């Protein structure tokens, strides 16, 4: 209690974003940032398409947990390294991997940010020491950054269940159901 009173910034920064080293690619780190009340979604999307934002812009209502994004990112880096991606860039591959189907345009429609969105989850894959990039992106978003774990409050559970076609028996853990489908979609 006292500690969080005296060091509010430290506590604040540790929960704001999530970083996870990819154990299979130890020089790569995945960072996730979450924003609400975003007013410049269209501009951000344009930036991403022009390569000015090196990251994947994701619709957070389809995300159950940051772990779901990590699974997509790991698979994207893996397929990138073996030359077997289904899309043109690492970031589009992350969005594609989130989808339970092999339809690319459908994946972008459901999991990518759209111009009218007011919340966005941004995923970056970078070298551990490369943090400037993150600061640049935060500066580009006209919105309020919120702790990444709050993504669960933005989840549209009914939509997620419908899109991933989960069964009532899987309701005990929606994340598990989602992750299983993402990981196995190539052979279904």
């Amino acid at each position, binding site marked *: 209690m006292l500690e969080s009173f005296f060091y509010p910034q430290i506590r604040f920064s540790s929960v704001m974003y999530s970083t996870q080293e990819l*154990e*299979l690619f130890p020089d790569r780190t995945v960072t996730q940032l979450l924003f609400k009340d975003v007013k410049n979604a269209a501009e951000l999307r344009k930036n991403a398409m022009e390569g000015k934002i090196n990251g994947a812009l994701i619709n957070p209502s389809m995300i159950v947990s940051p772990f779901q994004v990590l699974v997509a990112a*790991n*698979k994207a880096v*893996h397929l990138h390294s*073996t*030359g077997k991606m289904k899309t043109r860039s690492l970031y589009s591959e992350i969005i594609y991997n989130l989808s339970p189907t092999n339809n690319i345009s459908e994946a972008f429609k459901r999991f990518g940010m759209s111009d009218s969105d007011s919340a966005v989850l941004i995923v970056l894959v970078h070298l551990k020491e490369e943090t400037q990039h993150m600061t640049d992106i935060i500066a580009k978003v006209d919105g309020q950054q919120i702790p990444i774990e709050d993504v669960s409050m933005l989840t549209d559970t009914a939509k997620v269940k419908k899109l991933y076609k*989960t*069964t009532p028996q899987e309701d005990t853990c929606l994340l598990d159901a989602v992750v299983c489908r993402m*990981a196995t979609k190539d052979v279904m």
Partner: protein
Amino acid sequence: MAVEGTSVALPQFLKKIELIKQGAEARVYRGSFLGKPTIVKERFPKLYRHPLLDEKLTHRRTVQEVRSILRCRKAGISAPVVYFVDYTSHCIFLEDIVGSITVRDHIASTQLSSAQKSPEEHLDQLAQKMGQILAKMHDEDVVHGDLTTSNMLLKAGAESGETELVLIDFGLSYISALPEDKGVDMYVLEKAFLSTHPNTEALFEKLLKAYAASSKKSHAVIKKLDEVRLRGRKRSMVG
């Protein structure tokens, strides 16, 4: 980053984590993946097989394993979550059922424990649960292909205190509605069960009884099981 088509990252990762089982078909490892406790199952090339045939078989087993896991999970049958699959090195990354033990080890230690006056009675509930879950699996037309007490894990339930039975090792599984296939599945289990665990005939009967009681389709399966048993006996009499 890598030679086109193959991953250098994976072999390097496997070197760093703990090898827990070196089998004839696969190596099983334990480590951390995306921050979670994970089991990695690596199916390695078998040098005595023709490389193309080997590749095809190994690929098929990897695919069958993840397909059946998903099919079971959809039906509410516990099996580990699949986190990641690499079809080039034939590695499956699975949820580590932390703190679990195999049914084999559980039965063995219960039988040994002198504290149990009647170990078989103590194991009745487990046999019942096994029968019920296998009936449910067969009702989904999943034939496991390698039913043994090592391919079932017991996991302490979160709050309920009840133990959960988790099915694993689906590499030889396939989809079939035929009572014959399911009967053979149960026959394989019976053989493995009785040879691994001495004096468990009565216990296995309880398992079969629960199996029969749990599924409408079980009658035809048990009939086939009886036929297969008879065939097995005849064969051993002749051979």
